[in-house]
Structure formats: structure tokens, C-alpha cells
């Protein structure tokens, strides 16, 4: 990829992700409303929310560390944009990535959570500190099974015959186009997909794992002191994550997106909508659990399952 192409690709991928995210956010609110027997907001609602927040006053509290407080939402937005660019690019041109881009994307998708921790801590609010502490524990909880199942997908995509197979399968394009061979490896990847669904539920802060914000308990936690444009950027970042996280696990476990023919476009959209609706249904049919319950769930239930998935997909190689 030459340098002249970087800026248009970056701008295009970010815009596409924002649009997809805004539509997903609207679907989320609309489906939630239907489940609760309400009518729900009009289609432009997430966009109106963000434009409104951009036009409002930005308040920096006396107790806040101004630079970190205002910088962190921007850092989160930037990292999600870069992750989205790498994901879209390796979906559209599977052979054009670089070895290890899956690791880069994993790191980039961890940074928004860290910016929430830092921004919340910088705001000087005790409720934000509680939220930031919970985000830190939640990050430790879901990253372990998430990394294990992604490793399972990497082993599932490894070709046995070539000596460089393992190195090449640390590449998003290779994982996307690989056909998992054998029953054990396929089973491992299916379990991995289900586990990763629950991990992104926590990564997106959706309801069973929304103890970080917990609106009626700690009044949106780390975001409590944000207003105006920084809050708009936080909402934009979360909207983009709602598009990027399903895209990421679809790329890893479910053949990714492709737009070569009409049928392919329909299949890609179908996969995305299915993952999104599962996330929304889980969010609407569960109560918020406590942080220690979440930790126990991810470490004592999902991590052993993830190890089983990893073993199954490694078993094919031997």
C-alpha cells in the first residue's frame, strides 16, 4: 500500500464505520423499544444526539486534570479509527495485510478501555473513580478468554504443510480466508465464536456487563463529568466500537465481509445483523451483574472453555 492511498482509505474506513455504527445504534435502540412494547426513536436519533452534544458547552471541573481529561476521548476515537481501517482493508484485500496485524488490532481495541480508565480518573469525581476501577477489573476479566479464543482461531487457520504457516496465520487476511479443516478444529472455532460474543458484550459495555457505567447506581461512572464535545466524541467512539467489534469477530471466526457479488453483500450484512441482534437480545433480557460475578464468569467459566477450544483447534495440527 503506497502512502498516497493511506489518507483516502483511512477517511473512507472511518466514515463507513461511523455510518454503520450510527445505524447499528439506532437498530439497538429500536429493537430495545420493541422488546419493551414501545415505539422507539426515529432513524436519525444517534446522529442528532452527537450533533447536539457537539453544540453544547464543554465544562472542565475544578478537580479535573484538564489535559488528560480532554485528551483521552480523542485518543480513544483515534485508536478505534485505526483499528477500523486495518479491519476494513484486510477484509477487502485479504492478501494485502502484514504479519501480526491481528495483534495490532487487538492492542488498538484495548486502548479505548484504557482511555476510559484514564479519562475517568482524571475527572476527579469519586463515582468516576469507582467506574474506572470496575473498568480495569472488567478489562482483566474479559481479555484472558478473548485472547485464548483468538489464538484458537489462529491455530485453526494454520496450514500443516508449510513451515511458515503459523507466522502467516497471525494475519487477519489469512484467518479470514482460511477454511478450518477437521471436526475438532471447527468445533474449537465455534466454541471460540460463542465465547468471543460474550467478551465483546463486555467490551462494548452492554447490559449484563455495564457495571462500569451503571446509570442508576454510579450515574454513568467514568463519563459522569464529561459534557459537550468530549462527550460527543465518547459517544462517537462507542458507536464505532458497536460496528468494529462484531466486524472483528466475524473476520476472525466467520469468514469476514466481502463485497464481490450481490450474494456476498447479502451474506456479509446477514452475519453482521445476526451478531448485532444477539448482542441486543442478550442486553435486553439480562440484569446487570456485579463486578465480582463478571470476573468469576469470565475466569472460571469462559477461560476453561476457551482452553478447551484452543486445545481442540491445536489438535488438528498434530
Amino acid at each position, binding site marked *: 500500500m503506497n502512502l498516497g492511498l493511506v489518507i483516502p482509505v483511512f477517511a473512507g474506513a472511518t466514515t463507513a464505520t461511523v455510518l454503520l455504527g450510527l445505524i447499528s445504534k439506532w437498530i439497538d*435502540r429500536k429493537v430495545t*423499544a420493541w422488546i*419493551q*412494547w*414501545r*415505539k*422507539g*426513536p*426515529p432513524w*436519525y*436519533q444517534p*446522529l*442528532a*444526539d452527537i*450533533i*447536539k452534544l457537539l*453544540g*453544547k*458547552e*464543554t*465544562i472542565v471541573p475544578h478537580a479535573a486534570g484538564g489535559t488528560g481529561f480532554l485528551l483521552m476521548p480523542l485518543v480513544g476515537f483515534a485508536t478505534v479509527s485505526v483499528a477500523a481501517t486495518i479491519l476494513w482493508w484486510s477484509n477487502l484485500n485479504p492478501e494485502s495485510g502484514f504479519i501480526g496485524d491481528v495483534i495490532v488490532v487487538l492492542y488498538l481495541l484495548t486502548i479505548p478501555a484504557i482511555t476510559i480508565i484514564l479519562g475517568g480518573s482524571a475527572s476527579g469525581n469519586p463515582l468516576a473513580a469507582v467506574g474506572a476501577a470496575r473498568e480495569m477489573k472488567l478489562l482483566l476479566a474479559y481479555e484472558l478468554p478473548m485472547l485464548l479464543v483468538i489464538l484458537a482461531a489462529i491455530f485453526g487457520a494454520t496450514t500443516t504443510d508449510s513451515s511458515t504457516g503459523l507466522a502467516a496465520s497471525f494475519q487477519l487476511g489469512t484467518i479470514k480466508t482460511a477454511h478450518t479443516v477437521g471436526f475438532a478444529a471447527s468445533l474449537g472455532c465455534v466454541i471460540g465464536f460463542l465465547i468471543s460474543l460474550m467478551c465483546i458484550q463486555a467490551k462494548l459495555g452492554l447490559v449484563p456487563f455495564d457495571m462500569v*457505567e451503571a*446509570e*442508576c447506581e454510579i*450515574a*454513568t461512572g467514568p*463519563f*459522569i*463529568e*464529561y*459534557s*459537550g464535545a468530549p*462527550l460527543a466524541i465518547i459517544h462517537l467512539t462507542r458507536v464505532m466500537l458497536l460496528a468494529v467489534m462484531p466486524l472483528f469477530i466475524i473476520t476472525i471466526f466467520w469468514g469476514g465481509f466481502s463485497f464481490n457479488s450481490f450474494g456476498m453483500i447479502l451474506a456479509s450484512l446477514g452475519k453482521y445483523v445476526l451478531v448485532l441482534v444477539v448482542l441486543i437480545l442478550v442486553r435486553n433480557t439480562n440484569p446487570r451483574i456485579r463486578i465480582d460475578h463478571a470476573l468469576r464468569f469470565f475466569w472460571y467459566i469462559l477461560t476453561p472453555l476457551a482452553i478447551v477450544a484452543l486445545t481442540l483447534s491445536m489438535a488438528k495440527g498434530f
Partner: protein
Amino acid sequence: MGLKTWALKKSIWLYHANVGACNNCDIEVVDCLTPRYDIERFGMLLAGSPRHADALVVTGICTCQARPRLQELYLQMAKPCVVLCIGACACTGGIFRPCYHFDGPVDKVIREVDPDAIIAYVPGCPPKPEAIISGALKALDAIPC
């Protein structure tokens, strides 16, 4: 109407402050969120933090203890914002006006910290949810474009 005003009118987040109400008006405010009225149709949501809110929904007479808190809440909100006085107590003090703990009404308390505050009055004991929704829309019409 500019884009900014359009977005503000289509996406009003409410922060509910009870400054000494008998809980009847609070029930009517919560009624607005139920499937029967569903104010999310108009983009209205209950916000968890006053920093996120565009409308301060006040119920109650404003007691001596609540007075400084109410002023602090108003100052914490990002401008432009509006205040909704829900119920007879918030508008005038109602039947509790001669009581020893009355230190309102709400509009006087808010005007002390911001003389130009946009305040809508929704009278009733309690007001109907329709009246609350209509009051919110009228207050937003008063925001200068």
C-alpha cells in the same frame, strides 16, 4: 432553524431532581418513559448525570435543605439548557407554601444564580404526562436560535 438547534430539539436529555416532592409528580415523570407515552419517540432520555442533561426536571417545593443543591445542579449543567417546574409545588409552592421548610419556589431559586434561565411551568397536582411533554417542547422553543 440551524442544524444545532434542530439537533437540540430532537435530542433532549432530562435530569430529574426531586427537591421535596410528595412523589406523585415523580411517578408522572416516570410515566412519560413507559410504553404508553414513550418520550424516547421524541429523542428524550433520562440522563444519569446533570452534565449530560439539556433539561432539568424539578419536582417539589424546594425545601431549605434542597435549595443550595438545586442551584449547584443548575450550575453543573452544560448550557444551553432549560428548567421544567413540574407540578403545582414546583411552580408556586402549592399547598405547602406557608410551611416552615419552604424556601422556593423553584423559579426564584434558579433565577438567583442565572437571571436569564429558561423556565417552563407545568401546573397540576400531579400534571398529566401529556402536559409534561408539551411543557418540555415549549421550553425548547424559547431557546434563542
